[in-house]
């Protein structure tokens, strides 16, 4: 019998693909609300990477915790070995020893390694005023790998050129990164369709793998920038049965991982249903 699962959701596929980017011993940050990323950290920690450490809010190196909606900040705080503030975190982790991975999600991304979380349209009079970059400008530039995930791989998100460069990888090839005092590592975009990788300045993103059931053409047709699809494009490794079991039974029983995949209008109802289940499980 195959160890791979046939029964997984698109969100679980992306979550497992992100978790596989995490190596044992990595330093990670739980930043602004990106539940899929949080689930992927905990999944990695309880499976192949038990020695990773993460900073969550002010809590350093928390024990693995269940991804609930109402209580995960409190859970991370309770399980930590230290409590730091944000200044200590940015000075030591972002700027000092260096973070390995912190998956982000953005309104737009382009083929140059830029992301936009700021505005769509004109900067001073935007059509959409987004949240702004928070730590993302440094996350995408300084961290060992630049990792971004997208629930909707389409030409509105993956665009020829972002409207505003909130953050950029800046130096991409190993040689250029080392010269600028940055650790070498690729740019990886993990979407609901595929994994795209960029490792050099002058060359387009390479289609590294397509998820099971997705054709290369689907990816090209839905990407607003040039892709290198030469050679055989492999299939993304599926989630294993064990990973899916651990996700559903331990790490994410309420389905927080699916949050980014739910259309905006349906999210309040989804959150309410998670809350109800959470309280029920606690006996309220």
């Amino acid at each position: 019998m195959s160890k791979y699962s046939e029964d997984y959701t698109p969100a679980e596929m992306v979550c497992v693909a992100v978790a596989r980017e995490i190596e044992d011993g990595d330093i990670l940050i739980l930043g602004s609300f990106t539940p899929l990323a949080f689930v992927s950290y905990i999944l990695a920690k309880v499976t192949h990477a038990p020695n990773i450490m993460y900073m969550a809010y002010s809590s350093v190196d928390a024990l693995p915790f269940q991804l609930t909606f109402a209580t995960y900040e409190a859970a991370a705080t309770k399980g930590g070995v230290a409590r730091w503030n944000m200044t200590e975190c940015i000075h030591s982790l972002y700027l000092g020893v260096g973070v390995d991975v912190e998956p982000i999600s953005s309104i737009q991304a382009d083929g140059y390694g830029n992301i936009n979380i700021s505005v769509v349209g004109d900067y001073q009079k935007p059509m959409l005023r987004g949240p702004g970059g928070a730590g993302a400008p440094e996350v995408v530039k300084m961290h060992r790998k630049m990792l971004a995930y997208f629930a909707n791989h389409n030409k509105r998100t993956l665009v020829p050129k972002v409207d505003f460069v909130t953050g950029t990888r800046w130096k991409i090839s190993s040689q250029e990164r080392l010269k600028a005092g940055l650790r070498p590592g690729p740019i990886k975009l993990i979407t609901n369709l595929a994994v795209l990788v960029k490792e050099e300045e002058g060359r387009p993103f390479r289609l590294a793998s397509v998820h099971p059931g997705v054709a290369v053409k689907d990816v090209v047709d839905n990407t607003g920038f040039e892709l290198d699809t030469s050679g055989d494009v492999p299939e993304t490794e599926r989630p294993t049965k064990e990973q899916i079991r651990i996700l559903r039974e331990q790490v994410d029983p309420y389905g927080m991982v699916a949050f980014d995949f739910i259309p905006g209008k349906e999210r309040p109802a989804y959150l309410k249903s998670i809350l109800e289940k959470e309280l029920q499980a606690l006996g309220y």
Partner: protein
Amino acid sequence: MTTKERVLAQNKVGKLTEIGRFIRDGDSVAIGGAWLSSHPMAVVRQIIRSGIRNLHVMTILGSVDIDMLVGAGCVGKVTFSFVSMEAYGLAPNFRRAVEKGGLKYDEISGLAIIIGFEATGRGVPFLPYRGPFGSDYLKQRPEFYKQITCPFTGEEMMAVPAIKPDVAIIHAQRADPAGNIQIEGTAGSDLELAKAAKRVIVTVEEIVPTDVIRENPFKTKIPRFYVDMVIEQPFGAHPTSLVPTYVADPWHMMTYMDMAATPDSFRNYLHQYVMKSEDDYLEAAGGLKQMNLLKKLAREVKSL
């Protein structure tokens, strides 16, 4: 107060309704907390009740604090790196004000704004760091980001100027009457705000004798020589969290998002929840029963 006056003052305890002694129309106000955690919401609501206007609010990672002040018409300008309601979506009043109302804003990358506050706290006019090279922040804010060369190694660095708020407002677990502030959970960069601001107001869950502070001195994050006024205001961060004391209130956040959907319904929100008094606010938000639930949820969490 001068630093000496702050050291000499033994009793800085004030009432929420007295914040006008330290916050005035047109002030720049740095707001503590981060994401949906530890924002000084009771003071935010009191600013609205007191009709203080034309503020230049500053936040590192803002949410309902900034959104509420903007929606209530108290804000002339926002300096921020991030304003979002996180799981609940984009900040509705903030978005409307920028997209339709032309609200003035200064968007600065997250590390730069923290380092700008730090510069003031250290008494220097700027600090260098490996800034957001290649980003459009540099084009939009050339007056804020200056590329400089390290005089020792020749490396290219980014200099950011000292940010000098008039007032910092912070919410924390505990203080003594002299203003020694204990923070137990998510802290944002509250200490840097306190160091940078000319005047510092801190609301706390409880005011205790100094002896109690001395029992756990490692919890004290802001010593009294930075603080002008302390106010005892239980649940002063509601609807945001104050872990490990209480979690954020998802039910109230959903109510807020529903009512902030249009300017008309947001006026109803202010009328229904904010405009009377802080006691009335907590009662309207579910009273003791709801607040105790939020405390229990924070206590009963387990690791895997």
